[in-house]
């Protein structure tokens, strides 16, 4: 089986999308010669030229607006935000314009853009380069939010996101770029709005996103040794959310733990818990649903503080064990 890194998988998705459709263009800072801050666009300038791999000045509002404008004019732009944090400078163009336009104009326009956001902590990059902002976008009707956790999903979801006729926020994680996995050569699509059940289990439903999926799977392995059988589900698309597998899982397990890196308050975990509690799974709950998330603090730079701010493997094991043993 062919293996690629998450970075290479994204790169291949971009190449295949651009080969197939001349309307797909890339816009962002240092995506040409430099190959993108994380190397995702390496080689694309040589292959597609400056007309389709467009380096910009440091102008995030401009980049975002250019994507929206190009999208309503028939192109399919893929914006590169270099670091997820910088989308805050493009918020107005993205949220108040790009996301709202189709509804305001009663369906007259389509806004088929993808905005790639390399996010997350764990690199010691401190409070302005480590954020996980996915739930800011989940809160915006008109946007779709995708968050791949593996190389396979990175490619399949990016191709599907580029095909989609709506603005899609594509949340990548910096620590995932070097992770490897099976990635087929053909241009396959993983549909948006479909959760992935990574592992079946009877005792507890663990919903995890992005970086936390790998940690959740490791935790499930360890807990299996203790006789705790954990089901791991990765929504992959946070908006629209495919909640059915989660609800069905909780009906079987009676216990729910949601893990994400973004801060807990106002985070995606609250949405998952709310949906489960409001569903037919409510009657099957054997314990209060739990969230394990980033601490409510801007991400600090130093290793010890950063590790204390972000859920770690041992935290997942601890909370899952507590929940499975009814110690909450």
């Amino acid at each position, binding site marked *: 089986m062919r293996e690629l890194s998450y970075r290479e998988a994204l790169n291949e998705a971009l190449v295949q999308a651009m080969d197939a459709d001349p309307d797909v263009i890339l816009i962002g*800072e*240092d995506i*040409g*010669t*430099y190959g993108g*801050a994380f190397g995702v666009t390496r080689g694309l300038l040589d292959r597609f030229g400056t007309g389709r791999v467009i*380096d*910009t*000045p*440091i*102008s*995030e*509002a*401009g980049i975002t607006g250019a994507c929206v404008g190009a999208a309503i004019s028939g192109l399919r732009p893929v914006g590169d935000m270099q670091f997820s*944090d*910088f989308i805050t*400078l493009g918020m107005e163009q993205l949220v108040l314009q790009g996301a709202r336009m189709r509804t305001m104009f009663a369906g007259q326009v389509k806004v088929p853009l993808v905005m790639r956001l390399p996010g997350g902590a764990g*690199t*010691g*990059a*401190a*409070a*302005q*380069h480590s954020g996980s902002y996915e739930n800011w976008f989940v809160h915006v009707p008109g946007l779709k939010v995708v968050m791949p956790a593996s190389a396979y999903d990175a490619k399949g979801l990016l191709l599907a996101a580029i095909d989609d006729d709506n603005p899609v926020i594509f949340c990548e994680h910096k620590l995932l770029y070097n992770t490897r996995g099976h990635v087929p050569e053909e241009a396959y699509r993983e549909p948006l709005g479909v959760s992935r059940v990574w592992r079946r289990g009877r005792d507890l439903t663990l919903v995890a996103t992005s970086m936390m999926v790998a940690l959740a799977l490791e935790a499930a392995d360890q807990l299996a040794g203790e006789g705790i059988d954990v089901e791991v589900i990765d929504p992959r698309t946070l908006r629209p959310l495919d909640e059915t597998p989660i609800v069905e899982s909780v009906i079987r397990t009676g216990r729910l733990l949601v893990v994400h890196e973004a801060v807990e308050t106002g985070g995606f975990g609250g949405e998952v818990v709310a949906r489960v509690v409001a569903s037919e799974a409510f009657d099957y709950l054997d314990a209060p649903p739990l969230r394990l998330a980033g*601490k*409510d*603090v*801007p991400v*600090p*730079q*130093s*290793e*010890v*503080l950063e*590790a*204390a*701010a972000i859920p770690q493997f041992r935290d997942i094991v601890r909370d899952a064990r507590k929940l499975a043993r009814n110690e909450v």
Partner: protein
Amino acid sequence: MQNAARESLPQCQALKVLGPAGLKASLASMLLIRAFEERVDQLYLAGRTRGTLHLSIGQEATNVGALHALRAGDRFFSHHRGHGHALAWTDDPRRAMADILGKSGGFCEGFGGTMHMADVKSGFLGGNGIVAGGLPLSTGVGLAIQLRAEDAVCLVLFGDGAANEGALHEALNMASIWQLPVIYICENNSYAMSTPVNRSINVETISSRATAYGFPGFTIDGNDFLEVFDCVHAAASRARKGGGPTLVEALTYRIKGHSRSDRQAYRSREEVRRWQEPDRDPLLRLEATLLHAGIVDEEELSAMRLRASDRVDDAVAWAEAAPAPDPSGLLDHVYA
């Protein structure tokens, strides 16, 4: 070695304001920054730093020239490439090194790190991870200085790349209509990451933008300490008298890669080497001028270089011995 000494030192404001001892202190600061940054580079290569790093090597004359032209009570904002600013202002390599190594005892106790040093009491209002992030902030500080009728100015440093953020337009326009005491210093080091200035800006000089806002703009040799000092000093004097903002574009060059991940495919080694020659290197130029003027001699210069490297040794040893931050304090500063 080519003698790049400036004959015009006696006419410089820098000599009048700083005096020979002050000029020596400025040179010592530049030497410290160079030695510090070279050591930080080695520490990174040895795997002893975490996260990214943006080094100031090559930009010492702008770092020190701009900040030594201020006085106590003034404020300034730095940016992501800010080790040089922190050292020029605080002369405290121990604390800077502790921040870089993620230790406690530095400026920001493991929260900020390389890009977010700050020493607010002294007027150093912080580095910034967001390109152009300091520009609107400096306008706000200038407004406060004006409203509180303080005898002070605010200076903000930013890169050529930052000149293309929308924030610059709003910040400079507001400072102009309110005639705020703010000095905007663009460290034009020829590149924003991989993007050369001429591919991101369609006018000759960044300083020409000042005209559009209605205040003075100057493009100067940012590797000439004396020129930077004099220009910023004049701008600050005008601002103190209610003369409003100034935009200074200091032409300089980033000798090292943009950050630790930069493969530098966008420029040639030859180009970099050219900027390290005695007629361009900011340290060699100020050294030559002070030697020529008899303010230092070769022996003293060697001693100064040695002292800079000793202080860096000391800073590394001190920072490495400092404890890691205590994770129990993680939430201590989220709210006042």
